């Protein structure tokens, strides 16, 4: 890990770098901005615990209901660069809704959409603030965009796309670093729905707010971080098991996946024997040791080297995450934790934290 790129005082990075005294003093994501691979930091903060406290201090039940929207659905995760001149007030949101609606309708008239032209006519978009995701200062941390379409011959509307812009934890992670005025950060976009409206909405957002939106993918390193961090976060009975799925190299025909499903309690016990429960900080070594322990256990029984395979999907009691950027959150409690971590990753990828 300790390559030359991780020493903090290299002159390559921009001037803003000097302000940085975040949690990651030992690591700087911005130096590798233009390379497709990002480095994992030496440590991360385990966000679950204190986020939970904050939620429970408020009226938790009222908070949980809107968060149910996130749970048990499969989302695609996108990363978003800062939005230029994005306003959260009601009038602006209304204006955006109108704009996007008319954009979608005009696209439909071009006949580019997948469905028939008549199907695509009458698309309506709606921007609204997501209740339940609001930070201490009252700023919204989640904006929901829904696109719906009139169904032929029926009165009801069919929702074809749900997308959520999230900035959970953003303020905290980028505290020291100011953006030029006019910019607003919503680093993560969760989306689920049909392909055509999704693509069009993304194009519209990109041109409207001068940003870039890209599908996030999670490499095995990031996935192993998530497993380790989220395995021991909660200890209640009847939690979903921890799962690691490895893909076997494609040249080996016949075998495609090796899946290891571990009872949550046992995985949690193992993690607690590695990780010091008092600190919120998770170290790189701890993650490596956790994975190493599981792989050795596997090797002892099957004599197969799991380290030669690629980790491509993980499941924890908190969430399911696939390599190709698919996400399913399993607990309402975990929504904030997961979103926080995604924000962190997105900021690292776009190179906008220090």
């Amino acid at each position, binding site marked *: 890990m300790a390559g030359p790129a991780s020493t903090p005082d290299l002159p390559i990075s921009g001037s803003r770098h000097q302000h940085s005294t975040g949690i990651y003093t030992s690591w700087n994501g911005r130096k590798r901005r233009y390379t497709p691979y990002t480095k994992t930091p030496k440590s991360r903060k385990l966000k679950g615990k204190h986020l939970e406290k904050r939620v429970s201090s408020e009226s938790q039940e009222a908070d949980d209901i809107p968060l149910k929207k996130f749970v048990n659905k499969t989302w695609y995760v996108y990363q978003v660069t800062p939005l230029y001149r994005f306003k959260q007030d009601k009038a602006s949101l209304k204006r955006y809704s109108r704009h996007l609606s008319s954009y979608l309708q005009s696209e439909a008239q071009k006949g580019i959409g997948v469905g028939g032209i008549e199907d695509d006519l009458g698309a309506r978009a709606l921007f609204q603030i997501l209740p339940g995701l609001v930070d201490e200062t009252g700023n919204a941390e989640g904006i929901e965009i829904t696109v719906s379409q009139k169904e032929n011959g029926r009165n009801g509307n069919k929702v074809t796309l749900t997308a959520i812009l999230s900035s959970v934890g953003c303020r905290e992670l980028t505290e020291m670093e100011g953006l030029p005025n006019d910019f607003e950060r919503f680093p993560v976009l969760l989306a689920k729905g049909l392909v055509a409206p999704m693509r069009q909405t993304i194009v519209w957002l990109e041109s409207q707010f001068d940003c870039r939106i890209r599908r996030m993918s999670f490499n095995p390193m990031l996935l192993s971080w998530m497993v380790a961090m989220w395995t021991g976060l909660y200890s209640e009975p009847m939690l979903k098991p921890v799962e690691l799925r490895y893909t076997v190299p494609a040249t080996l025909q016949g075998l495609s996946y*090796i899946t290891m499903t571990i009872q949550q309690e*046992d995985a949690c016990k193992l993690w607690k*024997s590695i990780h010091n429960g008092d600190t919120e900080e998770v170290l790189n070594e701890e993650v490596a040791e956790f994975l190493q322990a599981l792989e050795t*256990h596997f090797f002892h029984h*099957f*004599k197969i080297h799991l380290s030669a395979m690629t980790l491509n999907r993980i499941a924890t009691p908190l969430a399911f995450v696939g390599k190709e950027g698919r996400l399913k959150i399993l607990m309402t409690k975990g929504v904030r934790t997961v979103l926080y971590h995604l924000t962190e990753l997105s900021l690292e990828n776009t190179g906008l934290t220090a």
Partner: protein
Amino acid sequence: MTANNLKSLQKILKSLSRDDLPYIFETWECLSNADIPTLVDELNVNLHRPRLRPNVNDGLRDISNLTSITLIEEGATKKKIVELICEACKIHGIHKKDLADLDLLSTQLHPERKRWIVYEIITNEDSNTEIKDPEVLCEKFGAQLSLLISHDLCMRMHNRAIWFRVGLKSRSKTGQGNAVFIVFHPHSPYFITTPIRQKAKEVIFQALIDMLQADDIQECPLSDKDLGSLQEMTLMKNAQGSFSKYRFNQVHTNPLVKTRGKKRKGSILDDLNIHIENENGKDDHRRQELTTDVFGSNPQPKLLKLEYKMRTQLRGRELAPSEEPFRCVVKFEGTNVIEGIKKLSQTGLASLPLPGHLANVHSMAKNRFLLTDKKES
């Protein structure tokens, strides 16, 4: 014919591929005796091909051949053929038994569309009453079963096995979803079925036990989609792996006679590459040898899934966090898992020798395992 019957007829016919149709024309009784085929042909002529048919009085068999072959060879689409058959059946009328028979036929053609579970019959060696004649077996099974439950039974021989289809009365109106297929292998203690609901299972197994005068029926921890491989794994349990070469008659010398190995003659290829040396040649060679020792050189039975339930102590760390076993489940998935594991050991992604529960899957008649620690006593 009721609307339900028609619906299920269409459903079965649609599930077949076009290449299956000649076989169905040949074997399904409704089509192999001439009434319906004639109707199909007439309908075809009237509706789509207004031309004179050649000899009508050529004998029944000829006509049936004519129909299937002309229709299929002329390149009629499957949809059209199915339509015609349905139309003809509607006019002529068919029984529920014929439908059940067709269902059985289509399952024999595509066993991979169902999941199959292996069971073992446990008998006393004394009370060995083997029934040789499948007809008798079917009758007896039907008699036993009708004491317990109302059903319809259908039997066919296929690939040296006796196939039963037990249709049970169901609440759903189509009645197709509730059929159970049982594949019997004479002279072996194993039989294979599709999944059965618990209630029906008790009844059917009771009838089987009574019929065979067996003591008990036990579920084997083996179930998968490829019926052929399951049969191979249970019936030829001891002829897998490196022994498969005897089964396929690939050995021409008597294995019990020791012969002095011939000196290997160098091939032309060796001469060409004389200056290129494979540094890991020895290791590769050894790995190949060990792999063929275990798996043999013939294709492995196809399994889509292997599952190991583990209740062993954690071996990942020097100090296990607790005395209790580490509960975890390991699954291997793919199109042909055993072949995949063979490849793993060939390519060196696994250390050799492989543990027994992984290397000998082919001759254990199992694909679900429970691993526990050896008890120290």
